[in-house]
């Protein structure tokens, strides 16, 4: 019986990365919606040992989310239809920002809107919050009819929201893409052109579960977002595609649960990675990932993680 290892190591590997103006202690950060607002993980993790903190998706007004059941376990994955429940941007400032001020890690605020105007209003507010170092624009949530899917699957709509939001923001702007499209490179290029500093992919893959005993869909919402190890091959493919399609840096997400998983995304050229579902399974995961990456790189004779990033052999 042992405790979860701390985020620290004396292996001499330089882990810091620069991602379009964001200076990160290491390339590991949580995926939005799987880390609450950060404080929930304090007992299990040294928050100051992470590359960044990413908040639950914020909207202009508080959002109650979908009816229950909201989650279902699947083979090597889970479906969620939380429906973007969140306390809203104002309560975030009041209730969560004070805690985040005490953390030395850069804070990235994930946000979304139901309309273009809402996106802009939230961006305006986020620009003014000091503790927010960067923002992550979610144009990809597949759960809420008007909360993303229209923006994220159509290149013109995606470009529009990105350029509008861009105008309110001096902070680094991450745009998070949905995998539920025929060709993710088309969307990636559109949002790059519209002013995205960083592209983050992927959000969840739309899925469904059904219960043959009750003969009902398992989620009250019908469909939900598939996440976890099951989607890692899809995420790797899309990160590879996007890295080769755009020149802005890419953050890889999808099914990362171990240092090896994280190293795979970096090898394909992702400059940083996010951990989602694995935080729910084991709140100490990200600490273990940082330590594991350092160990692997040290053993491979690599002293700077930037030498690993994108170093895939022909």
């Amino acid at each position, binding site marked *: *019986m*042992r*405790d*979860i290892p701390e985020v620290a190591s004396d292996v001499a590997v330089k882990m810091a990365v620069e991602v379009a103006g964001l200076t990160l202690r290491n390339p590991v950060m949580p995926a939005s*919606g*799987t*880390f*609450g607002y950060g404080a*929930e*993980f304090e*007992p*299990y993790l040294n928050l100051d040992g992470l590359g960044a903190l990413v908040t*639950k998706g914020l909207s202009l007004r508080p959002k*109650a*989310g979908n*009816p*229950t*059941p*909201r*989650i*279902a*376990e*699947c*083979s*090597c*994955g*889970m479906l*969620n239809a*939380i429906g973007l*429940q969140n306390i809203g941007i104002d309560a975030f400032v009041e209730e969560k920002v004070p805690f985040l001020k005490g953390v030395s890690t850069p804070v990235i605020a994930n946000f979304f809107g139901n309309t273009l105007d809402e996106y802009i209003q939230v961006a305006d507010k986020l620009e003014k919050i000091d503790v927010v170092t960067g923002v992550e624009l979610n144009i990809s949530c597949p759960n809420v009819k008007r909360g993303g899917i229209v923006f994220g699957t159509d290149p013109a709509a995606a470009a529009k929201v990105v350029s509008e939001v861009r105008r309110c923001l001096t902070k680094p702007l991450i745009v998070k893409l949905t995998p539920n499209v025929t060709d993710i490179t088309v969307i990636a290029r559109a949002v790059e052109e519209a002013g995205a500093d960083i592209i983050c992919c992927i959000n969840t893959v739309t899925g469904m579960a059904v219960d043959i005993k009750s003969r009902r869909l398992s989620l009250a919402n019908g469909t939900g977002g598939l996440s*976890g*190890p099951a989607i890692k091959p899809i995420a790797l493919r899309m990160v590879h595609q996007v890295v080769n399609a755009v020149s802005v840096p890419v953050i890889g997400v999808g099914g990362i*649960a171990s240092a090896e998983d994280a190293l795979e995304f970096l090898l394909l050229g992702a400059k940083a990675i996010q951990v989602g*579902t694995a*935080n*729910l*399974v*084991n*709140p*100490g995961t990200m600490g273990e990932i940082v330590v594991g990456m350092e160990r692997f790189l040290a053993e491979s004779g690599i002293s700077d993680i930037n030498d690993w990033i994108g170093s895939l052999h022909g």
Partner: protein
Amino acid sequence: MKNLKTVVLQNGEIADGYFRMAILAPGYTRAAQPGQFVMLRIQEQIQPLLRRPFGIYRAAAMPAQCSGLPEREFVELIYKVVGKGTTLMTTLKPGDSVELLGPLGEGFTIDSNINNHLLVGGGIGIVPLYMLAQQLCKRGDKVRLLMGGRSRDDILCISEFERLGVDVNIATEDGSLGETGLVTAVLERELLNFPQAGVYACGPMPMLSAVQAICCSAHVLLQVSLEALMACGIGACLGCVVPGREHSDDTPQYLCTCRQGPVFAAEDLAWPSRSNNDCHSGQGGK
């Protein structure tokens, strides 16, 4: 609250389809409160992906042994085999590794003005009531357990409650043990004898609804321990919410079972019974 990479100490069947598992758990005797739960990771594999939530039946310590073994704290779970995870759990043997996240959630609130307690359990709902009974009995209060189940096989651990000094009433639907019928009938009767009692219930949702309706009309305080699908157990995913008192389809109000619960004052929740709103004056806050 910690994530312990620890080991199973004991695991065995205690009744048809019910198992009891002891897990090495330093710190739990002091930390665990009645009504709290743990998230158990059955094996460090990807499948099944999610941890499973289980109420804490008991936290205790094995004394140090002459053989040199130091004192060892452990936590006990009692689980019903229902699906993939619990089936896998039955295969665990002493020494097998598991991960234990906990103790989690808000447990029962003990009101020092109430000295008479009715604990109502349905089947595996017995679990969170034992530590509650321990604490209440320690205060010298009068504690009565009303235990229901489909048949005698679903009535667990009764003698352990009796050893604490708890009076026990049993009702089974098939009459194979105790009275024939539902435990809610017993509750209605006992509330006549103890009109000032505090009621604490854990069991399937239909039972909890019936208990709520009864307590509501009897104007007694009720706390319920709920189950909900959980991914994280620590308030991060918002998968485990239940409708709160103010909930309506137009203005949803959701409470987080893993963090604001699993034990709730009944009056904080939305109940199907229409009489609910009338209750709130009669029932105190948790």
